[in-house]
């Protein structure tokens, strides 16, 4: 059932929380996920830098509160499906 509940989320981050220890945004996002015991190799889809500060990841529902509580996280939204016009 955990697999069935898995969903992609777009996570918006506050770059003020990125320290010099992270040379790139991607490095920072990966470290952030690892700090929450989320394996970026399995969960991280995209690391964004130019369009937004944030990333897209496939997450389990129980991982969301953990993520949302972190002060570096601004918003977490489900990945919407948009139609062509």
């Amino acid at each position: 059932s955990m697999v069935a509940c898995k969903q992609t989320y777009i996570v918006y981050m506050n770059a003020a929380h990125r320290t010099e220890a992270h040379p790139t945004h991607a490095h920072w996002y990966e470290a952030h996920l690892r700090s929450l015991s989320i394996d970026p190799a399995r969960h991280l889809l995209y690391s964004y830098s130019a369009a937004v500060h944030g990333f897209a990841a496939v997450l389990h529902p129980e991982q969301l509160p953990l993520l949302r509580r972190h002060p570096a996280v601004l918003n977490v939204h489900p990945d919407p499906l948009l139609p062509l016009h």
Partner: protein
Amino acid sequence: TTRSPHFLGLSPWPPAPSSRSHSLDPAAAATDVVIGVLDTGVWPESPSFDDAGLPEVPSRWRGACEAGVDFPSSLCNRKLVGARSFGRGYRAAAGGGDADKPREEYASPRDRDGHGTHTASTAAGAPVANASLLGYASGVARGMAPGARVAVYKVCWANGCYGSDILAGIDKAIEDGVDVLSLSLGGGSAPFSRDPVAVGAFSAVQRGIFVACSAGNSGPSPSSLTNTAPWITTVGAGTLDRDFPATVQLGNGERYAGLSLCSGAGLEDQMVPIVYGKGVQVGSNSSKFCMPGTLDPEQVKGKVVFCDRGINARVEKGQVVKEAGGVGMILANAAVNGEELVADSHLLPTVAVGAKSGNLIRDFVRTSSNPTAMLSFRGTVLGVQPSPVVAAFSSRGPNTVVPQLLKPDLIGPGVNILAAWSGSVGPTGLAKDERRSAFNIMSGTSMSCPHISGVAALLKAAHPDWSPSAIKSALMTTAYTDDNTGSPLVDGAGGSPATPWAYGSGHVDPQKALSPGLIYDIGTGDYLAFLCSLEYSTDHIQAISKSTNKTCSRRLPNPGNLNYPSFSVVFGRRSRRFVKYNRVLTNVGVPGSVYNVKVGGPPGVKVTVKPTKLIFNQVGQKLRYKVTFTSTKAGDPVDMAFGWITWSSEQHQVRSPVSYRW
């Protein structure tokens, strides 16, 4: 695009020697401009992406041609300067068992749908002589900016476009260095912070990239708009002055005008029995819509089938009739579609008819003991009047996300547009359609959006220092609202005059947009003040703007105070009988320009503009004016009205629509 350059007043191709100095000469313009198209990919072998005659790719370009399935990187050239695909969001949603290979899709920028090839070639396709679909709409097909470069970002897959893939595409397009972004997709009316198109577009505009998005195809329902963020140019759709007429002649001698893209070979000049609702399920209406598996072959074989529009795809109805043994189809609009006819390349001879004709033909079939019909086809006609007509399907205001912002911004050609097509799918897009055509005719705000993107590329080339909002202002304030008969633009949904909730500022006029005289410019700080006025949380504003510390020290007194080229006035029910907006105009014309204001408004609203005259001594000078809208009547929440504010000089008219709600 064999007609729209002419319809838009763009220079012919190739340009005549005498017009070489023309300011919107596509041969000279826009070769330094890159249009990024986020869509279903590209069919790079299309002649629309031939790079003959184009100079080297601008050295500043950082994009790449990513190799993938059936897509070697050598397929890019000086026209198609970039191609990437983003499918991780799609694959994750699809279950991701085999995470590296999307099912039923090319894991590459190759377009197996056709939509992306169509939109990319509409924006900046190279000229292709003798283009047509089965002989229809023949001519030289070309993008609106045939000199511009195209970079394709495939973010849409079999079931649509995931936000995570769209954001990845925008992310890369910004890094690559595109100048214009064209997105013919979107959905819903979520707050901007939840809309990846709005969020990604904010960063793009912040970097000076012009972003055009389609308004949606959910018209004529009110409040059906998508992509309404003020930093986006929201594009609705109108018709060209081109038609594909056909006729239905009934056995009683009555004739009804319709539309068809079919040759009608083997059917023309024959009276054929016609049937309606001859289904296999007693009591079901499904056969009236020609749903799959619902027609009774015994009653349909060798006959013309009358089908109601709705529920399933139009082209699927044709396939259903053909598979049941029908020899032709009459496809009738529902009341909601009105008399607007959309061309499809059906698998069998078909005539599409409007709702009124459809009702009469349906009655004939139901009441006649031995009903017959003859279908005839007249090919392509040009110079149709009236045109443009606002497409019935084009999404409408009012704007529910920010009621104080008038959307859509403008309309462009989006009905029955011929442009390049994928080589892996037939013109209907159906799996059973084994026909192949280098071009296809499609309708939608998807088609109008790249028209505007291409025109924006021409403006960007002519005015490299203009901001995205300046380009948008130029497009909007010079748009026209009368059709080619001199009458106000008509709404295809009912035949009555259309309103700014359907067409925004009007229909694009590229030549006038080149020289607007004045512009309403908006900077990033203004957009942030706008977001603060929406009472969004700090977290949401920071997420949209990428700010690390947004305190909303500056906020607009009302979101409608954004320096936008149009106005949306919302009066309160009791207390708020007047609304005040400020605007700043920047002179992009000549020194010494004098503008006087004219106001056109509905009864029941008093409009006061101060000052009424603006004298611009210098180019680049900014002058402010205030406008007060006072409701002199008690309004009802369903009340709406429209008016205009126009600043006129000897050379220019800078026109803004105003919508009113109570």
